[in-house]
């Protein structure tokens, strides 16, 4: 027997979802440890990428030690096959990996957000045609398509950004479209239209802010995917081989038999950095998404029942 449970608290005055954006993210960070951890990881790597050229201990263009030198007090994570310091490589490589990840995501978000909003808001033939395009892109195997493009256009960072960007917007477009379609039917949007507001104003003032947090959550999740794809492309040798990124570090180490040489320090740190960024993005993105979906918030799915309090005293006056 399924019985609906009303939430006597949510229906009471004053209890509700946080309503404005700054407040929303503050609440998410306050209530969810995962969000704090995720955001800290992201911020750590972003800051590191920004300051990398100034604090990297050694050059990444001039060798500074022996080939596959093991970790030492001078070189904490040892050296790679060309005698470059791993710590410096990681810092500088992270910079480009992050730039690729963020730039590709920016492209994906602009396309995905735009398509989602247009599609969801206008509906009809606009929705029909945009969603067909989305469907086709959705079923193309990402990596295979990227390999073809990289091969045709040539290996360069810019191409990698564009390719990832035009492939990764589809999920976002679908999610945003669904959200816009529901917001469009809200009474306050109808009221705005009734008072004479134009489409641009309605989208900009009423719909975009409402889907904003979802778009941000999606952006963060897409960054993780973009960084992962960048690594994969680099690893497959489809990226500019002269660029230093986490992906090319891995590829180099793999090509130059780091594993059979026992030089784990040439592979593990870069792999770990990639994993950390991806985990950070997922933790934060997921936490925001969960918070946006009140159904997942608490607790009716919990098997713990309500509790009985001991009655102090007897009769109607007892507490």
């Amino acid at each position, binding site marked *: 027997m399924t019985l609906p449970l009303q939430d006597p608290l949510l229906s009471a005055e004053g209890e509700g979802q946080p309503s404005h954006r700054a407040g929303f993210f503050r609440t998410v960070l306050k209530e969810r440890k995962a969000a704090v951890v995720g955001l800290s990881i992201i911020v750590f790597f972003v800051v590191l990428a920004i300051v990398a050229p100034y604090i990297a201990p050694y050059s990444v263009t001039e060798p500074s030690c022996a080939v596959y030198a093991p970790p030492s007090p001078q070189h904490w994570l040892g050296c790679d096959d060309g005698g470059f310091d791993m710590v410096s490589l990681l810092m500088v490589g992270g910079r480009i990996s992050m730039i690729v990840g963020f730039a590709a995501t920016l492209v994906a978000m602009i396309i995905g957000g735009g398509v989602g909003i247009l599609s969801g808001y206008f509906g009809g033939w606009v929705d029909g045609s945009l969603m067909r395009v989305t469907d086709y892109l959705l079923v193309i195997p990402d990596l295979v398509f990227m390999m073809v493009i990289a091969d045709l256009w040539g290996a360069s960072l810019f191409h990698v950004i564009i390719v990832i960007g035009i492939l990764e917007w589809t999920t976002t477009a679908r999610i945003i479209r669904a959200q816009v379609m529901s917001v469009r039917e809200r*009474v306050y949007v109808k009221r705005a239209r009734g008072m004479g507001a134009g489409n641009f104003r309605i989208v900009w003032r009423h719909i975009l802010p409402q889907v904003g947090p979802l778009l941000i959550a999606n952006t963060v999740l897409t960054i993780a995917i973009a960084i992962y794809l960048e690594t994969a492309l680099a690893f497959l040798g489809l990226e500019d081989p002269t660029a230093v990124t986490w992906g090319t570090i891995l590829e180099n180490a793999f090509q130059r038999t780091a594993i059979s040489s026992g030089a784990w320090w040439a592979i593990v740190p870069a792999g770990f950095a990639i994993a950390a960024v991806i985990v950070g993005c997922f933790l934060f993105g997921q936490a925001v998404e969960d918070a946006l979906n009140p159904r997942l918030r608490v607790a009716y799915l919990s098997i713990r029942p309500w509790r009985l309090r001991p009655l102090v005293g007897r009769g109607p006056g007892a507490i």
Partner: protein
Amino acid sequence: MSGNEQAPGPATVSAAGMTGPQPPLLEVADLVTHYQVRRGVTERLIRAPQQWVHAVDGVSFRLARGEMVALVGESGCGKTTTAQTILGMVKPTSGAVRLNGTDIARLSERQLRPLRRTVQMIYQDPYESLDPRFRVRESVEEPMLVHGIGGSRAEREAKTVDVLERVGLSPARMYLDRFPHELSGGQRQRVAIAAALVLGPGLLLADEPVSMLDVSVRAGVLSLLDTLRRDGDMGILMITHDLSTAARFADRIAVMYLGRIVEHGPSAEVVRNPQHPYTKALLSVVPKRDPRERAAPQILTGETPNPISVPSGCRFHPRCPVAEERCRREDPQLRLPAGATSPAHQAACLLV
């Protein structure tokens, strides 16, 4: 009060000062709004006939400044579609909606936009109709920004404060920076009313303005609307299913059934001397406050039929307790019933 038997004063007063006859604030003439029923692929393939929802099927009425008219009926009777058409959100199939003499049904979206200032709507659920991320100040200022009026920031704020005071949110400065979730239901509805008033509309459409509010605050919001139409140059069309509220606050009541007005007249006349069998049945089932007044309710069986297949003849005949053979064939028009005690009373029934 609400028992005015004749058309109330303000309309005649405002017309008197003008040269020549002024057109009424709102005139709905033979309004028809039909929707296409969406057909599935198979239905199109087998060439199933296109079906139509007869949401509004020939509605006419007038509303003057200073007047409050209630459109009463059950869900599906077409009262909300009528309001949507007057608001210009839905294009009518035929008929006219004249605002101060201009037929808005014939205007394009662009031509309509400046006219939107004239008609403002208040919605049922004030929690839904205010953007949850907008402070009170932003909600009230938005209509001014949309229409590019209100002048500078300071002037807009002064206007906002002024209109908030008018709807009883006093001191207004205390409310300016609050969010909807920090207000009670009644306060939210007052903010929605303020946002409608800020454009100085001539016509206010109120769609079930109090049905989502607590009993204890309903009277306040209704009295506010009552005051506004009495001292403003404004008419109010209230859409409601609550006959008690309509009887108490509206000058005239129009009872709708399946896209038509079946009875129309001064509130007191309609409530105390109903002529149409549907109105009679509807009035008999309104619960009374006094437990001793347990009148025998005349409960109609079934629910309002589907507006896709409207019955022949009088559209009420399948549920009518007094229907005769000719009710199946003849479609009654609104006319003065024999038993009326007011010349403004109209009913669409062959038997009165």
